[in-house]
Every structure is written in C-alpha cells, then in structure tokens.
C-alpha cells in the first residue's frame, strides 16, 4: 500500500467498475474511494486487480451491505471472516455497515430491511456490532437507514436508537444525508430537526446520493433511496446544515444505478468539496465574530 490508509476530511467517490479505466488513466484528484465489500469477496479476477491498483494511489473505505446487523438471527461468521480478509488485504481507512437486516433463515434478500426501534433490537444490534468490532479489531461506522415502513412497536426514535448503540458499543456513525430526507419524508418528521439532533461528534463519514419520487397508497409523497441520479438540492441544503455545525467530514458521492460518465461523478464530488470549504470559511468567520464579541464584552 503506497498511500496512507487515513481518509481525509474531503469528498470521495463510490468506485464503480465502469470507472476503473478512467481512474487509473487520469489519476483524478479525488480524496478517497469507497467500495461495497461484498463486490470484492471473490478469490481473484479483475475486481481485485483494479482495486489493488487504485488502492496504491488512494485511501479506501470499505462499506458492507451484507452483514445483516439488524437481524434477530446470529451473524454469519463465515461472512465476517471474509470481511476481515478484505480489511487485512486493503487496509481501509474506514469500515462501515448499515442499521438494517438483509438475511433471514439463510436467505439473503439483497435489500436493507428496516428494524423496529425497541430495547430488544438495541441489544441485538449492539451484540452484533461488538462481535464485528472484535473480529475486525477496529471501530466501525453504523449508517442511518432509509425506510419505507415503520413499526407499531417501536419504543424510541431512530436518533435515540443510534445514540444508545453508540454508547453501548463505541461504534461511530455514518450519516447518510439522503437517507435522512427519504426517511423523514416517508415517516413524516422534519429532516432539519433530525440533522440538528444527530450526534455529529460520532460521525466519521457522510453519504450523499440521489433519490426517486413516488406516491404511497394514500397519495402521500414516498421517496425511494435509488442512488440512480445526481444529489438533489434539498439534500445539498441538509448537507450544508450538517457541516455548518459539525465541520468538514469525509463525504461520499454514491451513485450505484444508471451510473454516469466519470466526469459527472467527479463534478458531484467537487460540489461537495466546495460546500465543505465554504462552510469552513463561514465557521471561521462566525468563530472570529464570536471571539470579537467576547473580547468586546470582556473589555
């Protein structure tokens, strides 16, 4: 590994096979790349060839989609072992997974399914994260989900659920700002309030992606976390709100379906970088103004 593993507090891009050649050919100025761990769990072949070449020049974040942390059933230890092999091989700067489940009775549903926010689920999710962190020998980040249904027996808010899991396990959080807008719209709460209440000190990474619009049976707006288009203006606004309070964080552009040309993804990444420097400048101004006011008061 030629480049340090550490993920810088700047924008990164979700690496797609379509862009291997563009990245290796142009060596674009990208802070870091992220891949879905499960796409690199084959024995060999082109995926490893290209990822190894890209890892030589860029820090890497590993994002799991199959550990099924929110499942009632036990973790798949064989899968966890595959995950560890990948972590050892590529030395990622960040490792993350979802607050969701995807496997039941051995069947893998290839989707991130919702968890009821109960004390029982907090306990199960925390046990699973403890085990993952033990096997991987490191802290992981847990991502807030996009949800289309909620459960009648939920006993707490999503934020309280996440806060409790962080306290119990010492894990960090991955704040997916697009998921915030999707879930807030679908479940009828305020996205701004959610962001304002999010424990940003625990956030090690931010996700930005595009969503599709639909309507539910009652004709209410239903947003779908499709990752198939550019980041929406409302999501950019939520993102600005997030970094205005929490400061710059590693921020990923996720575009997994209808993948565009490399330059389009690169442009999205630049937008995130620009927003981070703008907000950093505003924060500095605010801090200076604040300390001047303090001095004025003291004087």
């Amino acid at each position, binding site marked *: 590994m030629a480049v340090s593993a550490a993920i810088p507090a700047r924008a990164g891009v979700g690496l797609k096979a379509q862009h291997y050649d563009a990245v290796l050919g142009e060596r674009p100025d990208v802070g870091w790349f992220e891949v879905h761990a499960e796409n690199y769990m084959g024995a*060999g072949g082109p995926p490893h060839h290209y990822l190894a070449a890209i890892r030589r020049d860029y820090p890497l974040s590993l994002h799991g989609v199959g550990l099924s942390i929110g499942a009632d059933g036990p973790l798949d230890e064989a899968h966890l072992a595959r995950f560890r092999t990948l972590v050892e091989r590529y030395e990622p700067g960040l490792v993350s997974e979802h607050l969701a489940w995807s496997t039941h009775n051995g069947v893998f549903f290839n989707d991130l399914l919702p968890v*009821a926010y109960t004390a029982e689920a907090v306990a*199960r999710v925390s046990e699973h994260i403890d085990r993952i962190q033990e096997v991987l020998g490191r802290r992981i980040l847990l991502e807030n989900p996009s949800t289309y249904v909620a459960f009648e027996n939920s006993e707490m808010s999503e934020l309280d659920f996440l806060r409790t899991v962080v306290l119990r396990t010492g894990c960090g959080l991955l704040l997916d700002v697009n998921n915030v807008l999707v879930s807030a719209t679908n479940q009828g709460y305020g996205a701004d309030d959610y962001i304002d209440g999010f424990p940003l000190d625990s956030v090690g990474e931010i996700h930005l992606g595009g969503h599709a619009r639909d309507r*539910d049976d009652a004709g209410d707006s*239903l947003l779908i976390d499709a990752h198939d288009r550019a980041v929406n203006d409302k999501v950019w606004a939520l993102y600005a709100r997030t970094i205005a309070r929490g400061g710059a964080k590693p921020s990923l552009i996720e575009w997994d379906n209808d993948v565009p040309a490399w330059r389009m993804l690169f442009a999205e990444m630049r937008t995130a970088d620009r927003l981070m420097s703008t907000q950093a400048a505003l924060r500095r101004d605010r801090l200076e103004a604040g300390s001047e006011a303090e001095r004025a008061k003291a004087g």
Partner: protein
Amino acid sequence: MQKLADQQAAFAAALIDPALPAPPGVRRQAKLPQSRRFDVYRNNMMASLIEAMEATFPAVRRLVGSDFFKAAAKTYIRREPPRSPVLLTYGETFGSFLDDFAPAKGVPYLGDVARLEWARLDAYHAADVEPLPIARLAAVHESELESTKLRLHPSLRLLRSRFPLASLWAASNGTAPSAEVNMQCGEAVAVLRPALAVDVRLLPPGGYEFISQLAAGETLGEAADRAVQSNVGFDLATHLQGLFELGAVVAIDTPRRELQKA
C-alpha cells in the same frame, strides 16, 4: 408485544410471497393489503436480483427476449433465492432450472447456454495464477512425460453439450451473429481466465476427455489413453500445445518432483 424474531419472520415471508399482505406490525398506510410502501422492499429485492442475473446471462436473455427472461428470472429467484450475501456468483443453478422450466421447453439448449455463462462468471472471480509457457515442458525428460501430471488453472471450467454450445454462444453474444449453427452437432468448450479476460474455446475431439482427466489428477499417459478411446485420431502433441497456448497449465509435476515432495 411482537418479538424481533417473529416480526422479521413475518416480514421475510411477505417479501418472498407477493400473495401475502404486508406483515402485521407495520404502521398506517403500509398496513394496506397491497401496500405500495411495503412493495418498495419487494421491488428492491426482485429488481436488483433480476438485474444481477441479466448481467450474468446476457446470451440467454438475447435468445429468449427481455420479457421472457425477466419472468423466468423472477420464478427462479422465488424458488432459489440467494443463500449468501456475496452475490458475485449467484445463479449457479439457473441452467438446471431452465432445463425443467416448461415455458422454455421449445429451446432445449437454453440450460447449456446458461451453464456456459455461469462458468464464465465463476472463472471471472476465480483465483489468479500465472500460467506456464510450453517451453517449461521441454525440461521434462521424454521417458518421464507419460507419468507427468499437469496442474491446471483454477479458473478452468469444462462443459460438454449435445448442442453446438460454442457456436450458439458465439452466435448469441454478437461476436459471430451470422455464423451457421449445425444443431445436430454437439460441442465441448473450455472456459478459462489466464489473465484479466475470460476465454471461451471450442475443444477439438478428444479434448474434453483429455483435459478432464488431467483436471482429475491423472497422468499425461492416462489422460491421453482416455482421449484416444473417444477419438482414435487424438494427437497428444497438438493437444498439449493447445492447452499451454490457452494458458491452462500452472504447474508441471514430474514423477521425480512428486517423489521429492513425498
């Protein structure tokens, strides 16, 4: 209060069976029998798995058309959903599913084409090993050749069909769209990925028997004997050259080296 285990069991059952209503315990609109909210999960699962299968089986899809393929894939996914969170090689049994899929019985070679496409996928993700050049065989003394064993590339897959599999595949993947395909003539193929690209090669008569014996750990002499039984004109030198040119050989075990290891 509903336990997590029961809740997830009900949710999983409704995901896989579209005739079931949305699971109990979900809130408000999601409760409707055909809830669009719950259907997002059903659609996500089905659409993403169908898409994965379309990427794996482009020739099958081209042969039967997009709508037929989607319907077949949907039935397959409900019957044999993924059993692993690693989807890279999902669809191994799609060929045998198609063999017995009544709506496809007019296309009896469909299963073989699917097996070939899956073998390509499996070879794509197989372990990487540098193939040996044929020059290395020159170091083996002539008297030892018969009892020498060849270790073959981990990506090598062999398929034999009562249909002209290699020709059908070439005709349906766009590389030789107008080639004549003689349906009376069965073909055997080798699938291999010596470097980054997956090769599909038509095997000459006797080639399948020869290579499958080598793959089973038999000596060159035994493998050649078996090949001669199926094709009297089998020529060892030609086949050995073909095998090395393909990049299929990764190690040569002469009897002496075997002895050293023991």
